[in-house]
């Protein structure tokens, strides 16, 4: 059962559901080390899911969503200090260099420093059909979200996108069919829980780490198992 952790923003002092303080993040990473967890890369995780190679016991995957500047300023140095790989899921419309958000130059620096950059769509729209949309409109819109964001990432980082984090965690069969057609190896919801080897690779679970979590809460998310995983 492999837990995948999700972060969004980081801050020196402030915390809320989406924002974890620098101190808390450092504590959590230290905790992983002390408790013998092995942080593995996204490719290692998928090689395991595809039964290509084994992974250590107590493996865990770290992901960060969106593309906020605090990822570079706060999380990245801590990840580097512990030598942990992580995946940054960016929605490309957010990316522009300013006080709050990342620019491609910083993303490139992180990519060179062990951060794997993957897709989170272009506009961060919900991948759920709205009441006003026809099925065809929805289909074309999702296709655009996936292909355009992948093209932008390819242009800036010269790499192919293989994984997606669904905005708000929503997905459905049509979105999955599109992902498979476009060659995505896997995709992530935000449904809390760990992933056994037989989990659907395009319905993988992730546990969001809230800013108010203490180490006890954090630990629960490393060992969280719901028998839904067996359903």
């Amino acid at each position, binding site marked *: 059962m492999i837990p995948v952790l999700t972060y969004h923003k980081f801050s020196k002092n402030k915390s809320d559901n989406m924002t974890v303080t620098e101190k808390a993040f450092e504590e959590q990473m230290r905790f992983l080390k002390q408790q013998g967890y092995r942080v593995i890369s996204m490719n290692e995780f998928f090689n395991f899911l595809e039964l290509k190679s084994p992974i250590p016991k107590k493996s865990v995957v770290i992901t960060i969503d969106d593309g906020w500047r605090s990822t570079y300023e706060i999380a990245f140095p801590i990840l580097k200090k512990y030598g942990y790989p992580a995946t940054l899921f960016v929605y490309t419309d957010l990316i522009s260099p300013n006080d709050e958000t990342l620019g491609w130059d910083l993303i490139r620096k992180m990519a060179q420093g062990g951060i794997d950059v993957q897709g989170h769509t272009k506009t961060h729209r919900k991948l759920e059909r709205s*009441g006003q949309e026809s099925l065809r409109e929805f289909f074309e819109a999702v296709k655009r979200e996936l292909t355009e964001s992948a093209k932008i990432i390819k242009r800036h980082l010269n790499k192919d996108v293989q994984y997606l984090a669904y905005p708000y965690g929503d997905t459905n*069969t*049509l979105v999955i069919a599109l992902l498979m057609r476009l060659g995505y190896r896997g995709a992530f919801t935000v449904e809390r829980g760990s992933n056994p080897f037989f989990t659907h690779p395009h319905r993988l679970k992730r546990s969001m780490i809230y800013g108010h979590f203490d180490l006890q809460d954090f630990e629960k998310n490393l060992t969280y198992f719901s028998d839904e995983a067996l359903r």
Partner: protein
Amino acid sequence: MITLFPSSFLKIVYTLLLWVFFLGCATVPPVRKEPIKEEIPLETRPVPKEPLREVDLFAAFPGKYRTKAIDFEQRGELRKALFAWQVVRSFQPDDLESAERKKTLAARIQSESDRHFQAGLQYLRKNLPQAARKEFLMALTYDPDHEQSLDYLKHKLNETDFIRYETKEDDTVKKIAQKIYNDPNKDYLVAYLNDLNIGAKLKSGLTLKLPLIESVAAAKPVDSEEMLSKAWALFKAQKYDQAVNYAEKILEYASANSEAKDLKNASYYQLGTRLLQKKEYRESLRMFKKVDISYKNVREIVANLENRLQDQKAQAENHYQKGVRHFLAEELNLAIKEWEITLKLDPQHLKAKKDIEQANRLKEKLRKIH
């Protein structure tokens, strides 16, 4: 009563163990060296009368593994039992029992895994994929190399939202869209998802994979409203932990939803208050720390609890020191008692925990000497 050792001897032993306890492994006792003996000339060395007998280090293995194998079999751990019998057989190739058991077990493992696999298939036919998954997993427990079960678990069970369609002569993309979706205008789906040209003539025998799209219905616009009303109902029923789960879920999607924020604060506040009434201060503080600091009198409560826990910590240290004094006075039970109080007051007092363990070990050693 007869005692083997005089009390003064026990005293010496106790003092020595105390020294070991405090100094740990950091200090190594001086080693008394044996005086160097003079080399005996070869011709005067005593000659052994009999040749030295070789000790077979592995002689005990077959017996041990035979016991293990029987034990595993009795516990239903067939694969481990099979392995143990294989070990026995590798040491004793002529052993008939291990040969027989190995054969029987291999057949039983095969039949159990096949039985579970077939049960899985039956569940699938009844459209019960969850039950099927459990059976396939059972099949793998018996035989981790059961390829068909693995294939169902990894692929076929994950494709229940898809239809596989084999093309026939004269099929067109439009015709397939009509057959599958009851709508020829959904040809764009058939074509794009299978990398086909809409107008092209299709070869027969191609396998197309098409998603079922009933589930892609338009989203309900106000599900967070529904969740909120459920959450408030739970709050009123004093099921605060469940209410807070709903609030957190809504905030994941809409972090600015003020009603969900209120609900989260109110729920954690109530959870904290409940723990405070039970005098579980540490847990209570955990809950209050999840509430916005500006909510009601949370700032004050958090400060009070932190002070209280600080006092508790100081009290814990006093008890720890008392324990040390008892220990030095050779009153082990009293020392342990004090350190247990220390831990109750401050569960993170690492030294108390460690000292209790060591003192218990020391007690055990003394008990053995007695």
